[in-house]
């Protein structure tokens, strides 16, 4: 009998339920969209913040202090420099948090004589395809890491054409060089002077010391100055989790952690655990976090996540009230029906059971439709803002179905109570 009543209520009364389902759909879609965006915004913004450049720098362990001002070396007596082997660079991409390593670039610094003047020269990867020890290939280099560089001309690709260079804008103005011109560099290789002409592929407008430097393909520079397979700095851009108390404790002294804490720390993508793992992977290096980037990144991410959380709460309130107010009116509308049911002998319990099942069905149908619509909204936001889809978390679906039906029930409680209290005769007098 109950089933028959439900059936007829959904077939014959479907018109009056449509509005309720529609309202629940809108409410649930709002909740779904906001929850999905809010759960994913940390990851998405983290990637956007990568445009500030690398947050980790790896240098060889060394006794000596660099004496540099604005990229110019003032160390009079050529101190024995320490180096990192270039073949070790790719090892950074096989640490525990390898998937969080977004990009990296090695550097080798030297100087060359141009028209009798010493100019800092840097060898690096620009946009090179690198094979890591697992056999996978990635494109690494300064092109992505220094996203703020504006290039007149073009980037050097894969360092194939060795006699190419990218030069800073200030240098280009000084020596009156254009893209396509050739510049003569004198390198010191031991006691020998090597002269080499390179073609200017691009001119760098960067707003920092790179404007006074010359960038060459790494292999080429290593060859001319006789430092094969050597680099002296690696910049790493990694996705990290904002620092918390555990990370601070670990950073102060990893030894002080208990075994359990150590495991949690090691298996969370804190910048300090990533630097720790890099030091494990490459012998004889120090991996430092660039606090300007890593600290600020954490702060900004926390702000954005908090903002989105509060906005999501506002959206949930709005959708919850939307759903419950429509249910209240819908139940109030059916006072007469309740009176009639009671007049022909239905117990309060039977009426409640009938309504609860109906409401839950309406809630779930509306919630399901709303979930689908909400995913659409979230996808739209993701595409528009970040140029990629928002990751849909499955956990959101049961939550939305539950939210829709529970809120719909909550909205129906008080009108149902009022309707049940009324005398059938009073309601049905007409």
């Amino acid at each position, binding site marked *: 009998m109950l089933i028959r009543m439900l059936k007829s209520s959904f077939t014959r009364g479907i018109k009056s339920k449509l*509005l*309720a389902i529609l*309202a629940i759909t*809108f*409410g649930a*879609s*709002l909740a779904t*969209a*906001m929850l999905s*965006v809010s759960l994913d*915004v940390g990851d998405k*913004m983290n990637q*956007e*913040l990568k445009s*500030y450049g690398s947050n980790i*720098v790896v240098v060889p362990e060394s*006794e*000596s*202090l*660099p*004496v540099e*001002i604005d990229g110019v070396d*003032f160390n009079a007596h050529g101190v024995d420099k320490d180096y990192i082997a270039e073949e070790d660079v790719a090892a950074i991409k096989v640490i525990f948090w390898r998937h969080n390593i977004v990009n990296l670039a090695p550097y080798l610094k030297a100087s060359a004589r141009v028209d009798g003047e010493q100019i800092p020269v840097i060898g690096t990867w620009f946009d090179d395809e690198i094979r890591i020890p697992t056999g996978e290939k990635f494109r690494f280099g300064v092109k992505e890491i220094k*996203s*703020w560089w504006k290039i007149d001309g073009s980037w050097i690709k894969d360092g194939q054409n060795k006699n190419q260079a990218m030069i800073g804008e*200030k240098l280009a103005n*000084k020596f009156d060089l254009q893209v396509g011109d050739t510049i003569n560099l004198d390198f010191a290789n031991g006691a020998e002077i090597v002269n080499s002409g390179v073609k200017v592929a691009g001119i760098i*407008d*960067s*707003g*920092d010391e790179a404007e*006074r430097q010359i960038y060459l393909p790494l292999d080429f520079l290593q060859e001319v100055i006789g430092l094969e397979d050597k680099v002296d700095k690696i910049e790493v851009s990694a996705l990290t989790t904002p620092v918390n108390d555990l990370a601070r404790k670990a950073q102060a002294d990893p030894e002080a952690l208990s075994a359990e804490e150590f495991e949690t720390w090691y298996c969370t993508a804190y910048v300090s655990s990533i630097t720790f793992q890099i030091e494990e992977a490459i012998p004889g290096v120090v991996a*430092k*976090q*660039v*606090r*300007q980037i*890593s*600290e*600020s990144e954490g*702060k*900004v991410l926390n*702000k954005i996540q908090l*903002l989105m959380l*509060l*906005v999501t709460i*506002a*959206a949930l309130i*709005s*959708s919850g*009230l*939307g759903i419950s*107010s*429509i249910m209240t*009116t*819908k139940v109030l*509308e059916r006072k007469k029906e309740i009176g009639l049911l009671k007049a022909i002998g239905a117990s309060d319990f039977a009426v409640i059971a009938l309504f609860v099942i109906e409401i839950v069905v309406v809630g779930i149908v509306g919630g399901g439709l709303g979930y689908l619509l909400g995913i659409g*909204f979230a996808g739209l936001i993701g595409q528009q*803002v970040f140029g990629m889809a928002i990751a849909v978390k499955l956990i959101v679906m049961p939550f939305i179905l539950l939210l829709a039906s529970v809120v719909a029930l909550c909205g129906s409680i008080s009108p149902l109570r009022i309707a049940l209290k009324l005398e059938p005769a009073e309601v049905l007098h*007409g």
Partner: protein
Amino acid sequence: MKKWKMFLRMISQALKERKSRVAIVFFAIVVGIGVISALFSVYYDINIKMSKELRTYGANLALKPNSDQAQNLSLNELERVIAEFSQEELVGYRPNLYGIAEVESQVSVFKSNKPVVLVGTWFDQIDKINPYWQIEGELSINHDIKDEVVIGRDVAEKLGYDIGDKLKLATENTWGSEEFLVTAIVETGDDADNRIFLNLGVVERLLAKEGQLNTAYLSVISKGEDLKEKAAKINQKLSGVELETIQKIASSEGKVLDKIKSLMYLVVMVILLSTLLCVSTTMMTIVAERKEEIALKKALGAENQDVIIEFLTEAIILGGIGGLVGYGLGFVGAQLIGKSVFDSAISFRSMVMTSSFILSIVVSCIASTLPVSRVVDIDPAVTLKGE
């Protein structure tokens, strides 16, 4: 006149008699408009607020001599540039004077002198220009302190100094070495780790470069794009020195601000749309319920137009009051968000208030006239047959 009075009575009766329904609609409008106006208030403030937050990345402008010649910048020129910025825009500025000093290494058995980059600066500006520095110990805020030194982490480790130690340093212009007390160690992950810092006045004396500077860093709230233009405008008034945007920070900031702004925009739009649809479906149900009332009015001789005007007036009253109350609630909500996320108040904008008020009225009018216009042509006899 009489008709007017009757109309008023009908409206007030309609609102009074149907208390629970009116309450539901009112509630839906208040909450809906509240959420929408709160989010709009936050949205219009997000640029300036996030721009302030992004200052945690530090300086975005640098003042430098514009040629490679050894010509230096003077403090006066810095002051002139600073005067171009308003109090609210300028977070801080930090002058730097560089030099090389010899510092005795405490690590090796044979005591030897090592060259170290020496920086003269103002320590009170460090938490504004370099808020990301990790500082162990106390920075001497007072510009006049002459005998204290702050050292980078690598200097501390490689030369063997700790807080409280005496550090001797000599430059080309000093006779012998002078002693300073190490009061703080900074850890930064960049060049500053290899440097030692003294008050600007002290370094001027040590290097015999009174009133001179190498660079000055400025942190300016940019609100998006206009920083480069602003720098270019100031540069026209300067000679010998140049105000450069630090593109690494400034250009990324523009990108990130754009992202946040468009994210908030879309989110607010989705919420606006869903909330309005929710509110209007609720209103539509409630009006559709009043079929019998409409039929009765028509049976008593009311024209379609009269019915519609009556319902519209009701909707305007409900929407107007609901919109105002909702805006009030929303403004409080916006302050809560502002306080907890940005630790500052969200500013009042009359534009948001007016538009949420109008939005509220428009939505309630549309939501109530749609169902009314559908049922207004009904035959009273059919609808009322049961009564």
